[in-house]
């Protein structure tokens, strides 16, 4: 009985650690949607770009992992900026379906581009991360590291949004974009900065994922859908809602995997998502209009 409880506790802890990564993944997407009112369908593939950046710099060029990781944040931040400048900005005043289709096109472009350069093989950093033991609890170090980094990233974003003028302006644009020029704010610039920050968050998420998973051109499919689900469940554009929804989903998946199976746990999570959409289509943590 004592051992059994330890397994469950381990499961819950792993759920929390997994939730941190999911929360970070949701954050970038949510930020961009909340501020610019645009959904980056290719978000998971943009994360993938970061994973390949780290893989290429660390494994192929032999950079230290820390520098490769920083390059991922910066590199994907630039990708975010370019996505906005080249794809979203020209379509900003057209119907939303155009933006969806355009970033959907970007998804296939990035997949094909990755296949062209790196092939379809699974690649990894070849790291072997230790398993930590606390009494009878076994926790994977890479998960703990991922969780810690996610937490730091989220706190940094929080401070940026609440303690700086441009961060305050980013939150303000999400609430009333039309009067921003009366405040002296150039919304085009705010959109670019938001996209770069959203990209940077995706680049940070890439670090956490590449520590635990192999990267391949279709990796986006493994975490893309759940990221979108979390954002929608928390109320699209609601950063706090997405954060909480990430932990709810990760616990369902983690505990579900423990009692039944991983596959069924995902089925349960998706059923819950559908149920939420019927009961509260605006998301669990409704965003006031």
């Amino acid at each position, binding site marked *: 009985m004592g051992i059994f409880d330890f397994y469950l506790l381990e499961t819950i802890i792993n759920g929390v650690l997994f939730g941190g990564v999911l929360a970070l993944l949701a954050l970038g997407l949510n930020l961009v949607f909340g501020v610019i009112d645009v959904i980056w369908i290719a978000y998971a593939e943009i994360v993938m770009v970061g994973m390949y950046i780290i893989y290429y710099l660390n494994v192929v060029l032999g950079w230290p992992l820390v520098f490769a990781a920083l390059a991922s944040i910066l590199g994907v931040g630039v990708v975010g900026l370019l996505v906005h400048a080249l794809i979203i900005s020209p379509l900003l005043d057209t119907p939303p379906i155009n933006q969806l289709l355009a970033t959907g096109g970007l998804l296939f472009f990035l997949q094909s581009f990755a296949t062209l350069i790196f092939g379809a093989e699974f690649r990894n950093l070849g790291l072997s991360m230790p398993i930590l033991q606390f009494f009878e609890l076994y926790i994977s170090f890479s998960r703990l590291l991922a969780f810690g980094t996610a937490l730091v990233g989220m706190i940094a974003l929080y401070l940026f949004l609440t303690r700086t*003028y441009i961060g*305050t*302006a980013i*939150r*303000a644009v999400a*609430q*009333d974009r039309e*009067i*921003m*020029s*009366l*405040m*002296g*704010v*150039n*919304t085009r610039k705010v959109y670019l900065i938001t996209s770069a920050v959203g990209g940077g968050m995706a680049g940070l998420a890439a670090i956490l994922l590449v520590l635990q998973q192999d990267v391949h051109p279709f990796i986006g499919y493994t975490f893309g859908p759940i990221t979108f689900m979390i954002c929608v469940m928390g109320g699209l554009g609601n950063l706090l809602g997405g954060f909480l929804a990430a932990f709810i989903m990760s616990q369902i998946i983690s505990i579900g995997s423990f009692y039944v199976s991983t596959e069924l746990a995902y089925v349960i999570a998706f059923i819950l998502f559908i149920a939420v959409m019927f009961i509260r289509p605006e998301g669990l943590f409704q965003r*006031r209009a």
Partner: protein
Amino acid sequence: MLTLRDVSAGYGSFQALFEISLEVSAGEAVAVIGPNGAGKTTLLRVISGQLPILSGSITLQGRSLLGLPAHRFIEEGIAHCPENRRLFPRMTVEDNLRMGAFIPTARRHFAERLDWVYALFPRLRERRGQLAGTLSGGEQQMCALGRALMSHPKLLLLDEPSAGLAPVLVMQVFDLVRRIRAEGFTVLIVEQNIQQALELVDRAYLLEVGKVKLSGTAGELKNNQFLRQAYMGL
């Protein structure tokens, strides 16, 4: 200080302003009065650069404002407190005031200006951490005025500050505007509340269907037969 010469403007094929000429001198309070749809809000939007003009000229202290992007007007010294207050409802009072001080010249004086606004409207200091959307109507108007003052504008544009408020609060808001005047700000105010507005300002313009129908000092207009009959029911 502010001079409009033959300004015409509109939305698409709809022309809202026809050759408006208007002047506001430094230290003056001027009202633009008139019925719904006369173009009062449009006129303020033109002055704060939100709406490009079709013809005419706008100058502030002799400098032309034509062709300047909308977000640059506040740097020139024009702050616009828009219709319906338009606070950021899910941000605190203090963050709303911070947005009013977004431009670099105002940022440098943020702390002292904040103290000054709190001294002018002590209620805001009490509510500083509260979300703006949860304030009462009168407090929201205070916050909107405070936000517009954070940039220490040369010219303050007020669009119907008394709209949507209970009669008691309307008096309070006019009091707030009086306090702002007493601080030496130049104010251009749009009001439907004609009698109240004329008590507050030095001069006024009456707008009707996008044209200046009448203008004069507050005293002259108060005794103008046409205005009294058509708009004040006297």
